């Protein structure tokens, strides 16, 4: 006690030490080992040795370019779809929810209360060949009469959209809810139409929510493999499917690690570009 009194500057470090040490040991150090493994050669039988095997990287690109591009494509489409569904929904809750706001918000996070795998399996039921949803889509003509939804890229993208939608909706809601309603009224007093008031006031003010939401949706979506596995076929395999099967089934550790490092790097680069572009645009506008 008296020691602490004499060395007050130590207190924050003592509070931090256990948590930070844990994260360094089991988050930072593992990332080092992931890169280390990505340059190893070998098999389970003879063991793995570090040989600066850059080959793992060049092969990862040439062999799995298709799955990489597909992951980015599916994640991109799902992110846009989630934005198009979430924006009006959260706008409605934030501006028209009144005293029911908290209850309506509960509906948005409710999917999280059902185990991820179980709710994805529920989409198997919903999109199965003779389900009422597919029958309805066939009736409207959106799906051919002998067409199917399950085991197509549509099913995988639909699953990803649903599973990560709350990541989009929550930050959107937070930024919409914080908007000072009198600003919109002021715009209308100054003879802006509803559309113009929305485009010039509401939309720019909700931009932080849009940015956070799209990032929080896109990142996990690009690394996902559960939707492709449960709702698709090998033709819809994403990079996550390749990584998990190489690590856990084929035990091709070197290349699996190389693929993970590339995925992480691609996502980091996209985040930087994305925030730069949007950041400068907002400064200009």
């Amino acid at each position, binding site marked *: 006690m008296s020691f602490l009194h004499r060395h007050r500057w130590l207190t924050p470090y003592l509070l931090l030490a256990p*948590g930070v040490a844990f*994260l360094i040991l089991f988050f930072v150090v593992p990332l080092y080992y992931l890169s280390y*493994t990505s340059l190893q050669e070998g098999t389970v039988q003879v063991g793995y040795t570090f040989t600066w095997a850059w080959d793992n990287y060049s092969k990862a690109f040439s062999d799995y370019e298709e799955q990489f591009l597909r992951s980015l494509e599916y994640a991109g489409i799902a992110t846009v779809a989630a934005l198009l569904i979430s924006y009006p929904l959260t706008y409605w809750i934030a501006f028209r929810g009144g*005293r029911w706001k908290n209850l309506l918000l509960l509906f948005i*996070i409710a999917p999280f209360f*059902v*185990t991820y*795998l*179980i709710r994805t399996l529920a989409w198997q*039921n919903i999109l199965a060949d003779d389900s009422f949803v597919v029958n309805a889509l066939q009736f409207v003509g959106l799906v051919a009469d002998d067409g199917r939804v399950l085991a197509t890229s549509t099913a995988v993208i639909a699953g990803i959209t649903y599973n990560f939608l709350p990541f989009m909706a929550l930050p959107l809601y937070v930024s919409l809810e914080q908007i000072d309603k009198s600003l919109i009224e002021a715009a209308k007093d100054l003879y802006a139409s509803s559309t113009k008031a929305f485009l010039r006031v509401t939309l720019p003010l909700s931009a932080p929510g849009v940015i956070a939401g799209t990032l929080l949706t896109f990142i996990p979506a690009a690394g996902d493999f559960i939707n492709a596995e449960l709702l698709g076929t090998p033709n819809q395999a994403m990079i996550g499917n390749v990584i998990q099967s190489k690590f856990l089934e084929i035990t091709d550790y070197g290349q699996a690690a190389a693929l993970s490092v590339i995925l992480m790097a691609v996502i980091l680069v996209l985040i930087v570009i994305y925030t730069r572009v949007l950041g400068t645009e907002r400064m200009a506008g």
Partner: protein
Amino acid sequence: VTAAAEPQPLPRRRVSLLSRAWAFVRRHTLTVFGLLALAYLMLPIVIVIVFSFNNPAGRFNYTWEGFTTEHWTNPFGPPFLGDSVATSIKVAVLATVVSVILGTLVAMALVRYHFRGRGATNLLIFVPLTAPEIVLGASLLALFLNLGTALGFWTIVIAHIMFCISFVVVTVRARLVGFDRHVEEAAMDLGANEYVTFFKITLPLIAPGILAGALLAFSLSIDDFVITNFNAGTTETFPLYVWSQAQRGVPAEVNVIGTMIFGVAVLLMLLNVILSYRRNPKGAA
């Protein structure tokens, strides 16, 4: 109002009817869209609950075959299912306790002290939240493989603590930011020492934040599949059990347990919403 009283030529009346209909649609499209979006979010949940009462003819619980409460009377009937749920609960309790202690200490240091390395600590907390789960899982596996650690119960617990810490820090920090430190100073002025002040004043005031962090950590842990899948060895948690059954046909008892988890989570959230209404009847949390 006046249109009905004054006799008017027919075409003008039709225009006003059309424009009124248009106004009605415009006024309510947002509500209609919001309700449809909520229905979309609820659909898989309803399916999970409904199919927990299904009486499937074969192994696949896809199509509705008839009502039965059989699965509810013995939800842990199928082999290994009960064990996997028990393992999941043990892991979640351990991960929650450890991550809440470590995370709360880090949050206190970050909010209350200015110290060298604050930015780096914030980054260390933030990055695990944005990294794709598959990279977190793969890098931990790379660590354990290189160190020759046997995979099993404890490697799962370590993985879960790792990804829960950041969520706890963020949740508790949000609560600490709005903390009035004068209350603590008052306690000290009245002769309480630092420990008494912490346990009698600080802890009760930040308890809701800690509780929210604990609930979040527990639900993240019990739901996690991707990271667990990489670090489980032969140990089976509930999501891993569901995954292993997915190809052969998931037993309806899985829906029962999914419904139970959903029910408990909804009850807790409703309690939270009701408490926040009590504190602030206008509905702003």
